[in-house]
């Protein structure tokens, strides 16, 4: 269970980016952090990962303040997938995935057969096992993102069966075209069905979040506008407040998932 309680954070003493944000990522939960650009989504994710320390409020993992958890112990429980990954050198796919094993190894220890087995299991889980020996830089954007997800899985796994860790994904589809977005969504859904992991994802894409996440946190100007089960949270009124856009919220006749159709920019009358 990952919890943020009333966290406040600002970079270098400037205006706070997060102004009292609370959220819960339950075990096996799938939480979407939704908001316009500049609303604080990425910063919130960094705070959840322990990469930035809130000036007030706390982030708790299983009841312990993440600031008090040694960084390697924290890394064994929680992994982050960034928007994009650019390598400085020409590593192969398996080498990138094995880097996820860093927090499991002692200072001069090298990866053993167990680590290799875990890395391969993670590649298999993300459908990238056949890319094992390819140079990471030669992969497509979608393949790269799946390999980085595999690296994150290898990081939170104590054995070849991934343990109950947490994956944080920061706008994972921002640099992907539509086919890869759908592919990544399918991958995350299947990982969640098969593995005891919790996922939190930041995105500004309403339909991506609506189709994928069980719970949503709507973030606006560093504050929570609304949070709860996806079906309850996504209403035309809230979308207007969040994006300043008129939208229709319906249910798709085939998939049965919520579907948001943006209509136009909000006007003075519609806001009132």
């Amino acid at each position, binding site marked *: 269970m990952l919890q943020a309680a009333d966290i406040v954070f600002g970079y270098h003493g400037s205006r706070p980016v997060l102004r009292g944000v609370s959220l819960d990522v339950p075990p096996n939960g799938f939480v979407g952090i939704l908001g316009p650009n500049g609303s604080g989504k990425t910063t919130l994710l960094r705070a959840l990962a322990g990469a930035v320390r809130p000036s007030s409020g706390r982030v708790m993992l299983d009841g312990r303040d993440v600031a008090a958890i040694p*960084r390697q112990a924290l890394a064994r429980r929680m992994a982050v997938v960034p928007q994009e990954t650019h390598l400085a050198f020409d590593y192969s796919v398996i*080498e990138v995935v094995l880097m996820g094993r860093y927090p499991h190894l002692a200072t*001069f220890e090298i990866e053993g057969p167990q680590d290799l087995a875990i890395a391969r299991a993670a590649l298999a889980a993300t459908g990238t096992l056949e890319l094992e020996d390819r140079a990471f830089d030669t992969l497509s954007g979608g393949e790269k993102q799946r390999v980085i997800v595999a690296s994150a899985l290898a990081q939170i796994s104590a054995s070849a069966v991934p343990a109950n860790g947490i994956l944080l994904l920061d706008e994972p589809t921002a640099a992907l075209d539509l086919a890869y977005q759908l592919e990544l969504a399918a991958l995350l859904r299947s990982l969640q069905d098969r593995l005891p992991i919790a996922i939190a994802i930041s995105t500004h894409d309403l339909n991506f979040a609506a189709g994928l996440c069980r719970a949503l946190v709507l973030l606006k100007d560093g504050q929570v506008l609304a949070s709860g089960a996806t079906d309850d949270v996504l209403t035309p009124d809230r979308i207007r407040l969040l994006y300043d856009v008129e939208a229709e919220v319906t249910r798709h006749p085939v998939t049965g998932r919520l579907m948001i159709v943006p209509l136009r920019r909000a006007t003075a009358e519609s806001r009132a």
Partner: protein
Amino acid sequence: MTASLGRRFAMTTVGFGVLAAAAVVTAPLVGSTHISLRRAFSTAIPFSENPDAQIFFIARLPRTLAGALVGSMLASAGVVFQGLLRNPLATPFTLGVSAGAALGAMLAITFGWSFTVAGMGAAPAASFIGSVGAVAIVYALARARHRGLSTNVLLLAGVTMNAFFSALILFVQYFADFSQTYRILHWLMGDLDISSYEPVITALPFVLVSLAVFAWLARPLNLLSLGIESAGTRGLNVATAQRAAFLSASLATGAAVSVGGPIGFIGIVVPHLVRLIVGPDHRLVLPASALFGAAFLIGCDVAARTVMSPVELPVGVITALVGGPFFLWLLVRKR
């Protein structure tokens, strides 16, 4: 992924180790006077009556060992700077270390300082002090606005310090007479004209400290290749790793430059050649570069001593002649 990392490590260190050892043993045999390896190591002849042994151990071996030390430090420092800055084109001299060293050496030569510190003459000692000064300034700037180290500020501060020190060097040179200017030019080209063990012994403690830190840095440098944020979320203490990398690589560079002057291109040619052979994992690249750097510089120095014999070229001329075209090839090479 055929062999395990442990086996690849053993193969790499043994392979490049044999190459370095062969260079150390054969380089002293080459020179204007022909000597025999067997007679040099013969115990039947007393040392005082054995000219082969005297030439081997007194005239040529110190220079060879100095070449090994300088080559191995510049090559491995190059690897560390490239990893730290996440830029394969960084060199040990990118961040101002060599310019600070050059200014120190220049001041010592121009103003005829004649002190010795721990067995080092005035020019090497002043160059080491100059490199430490440059490093301290760049480091302070890069930390001024960040909790960790900002690699962008490091890079900009380093490049600016290089330019600023170069301006100071020109200013100081104005006060030098003709023979001093010749010595300065010679020093700036990088030269291993060494005929005692003292420079090597003085530099050795710095070298050993740097190598120990490099060994620890190998895996952190791999993680830094993913990006600073990603390295941090995988459990690496990024600020500590960056500081250790910057300070140890600067120390190694300062020690190397105080012995041989700013010998160019080793720090970029060797790491790239090594990566072509062993791949990008720093746990292989670092030891292989340290060993191959030694062999490479010894080889260049043999060439410097022999190609225009009896005239000896500064070894920096040879490394630049070999390294320049290689560097350009790297830039245009198809990936």
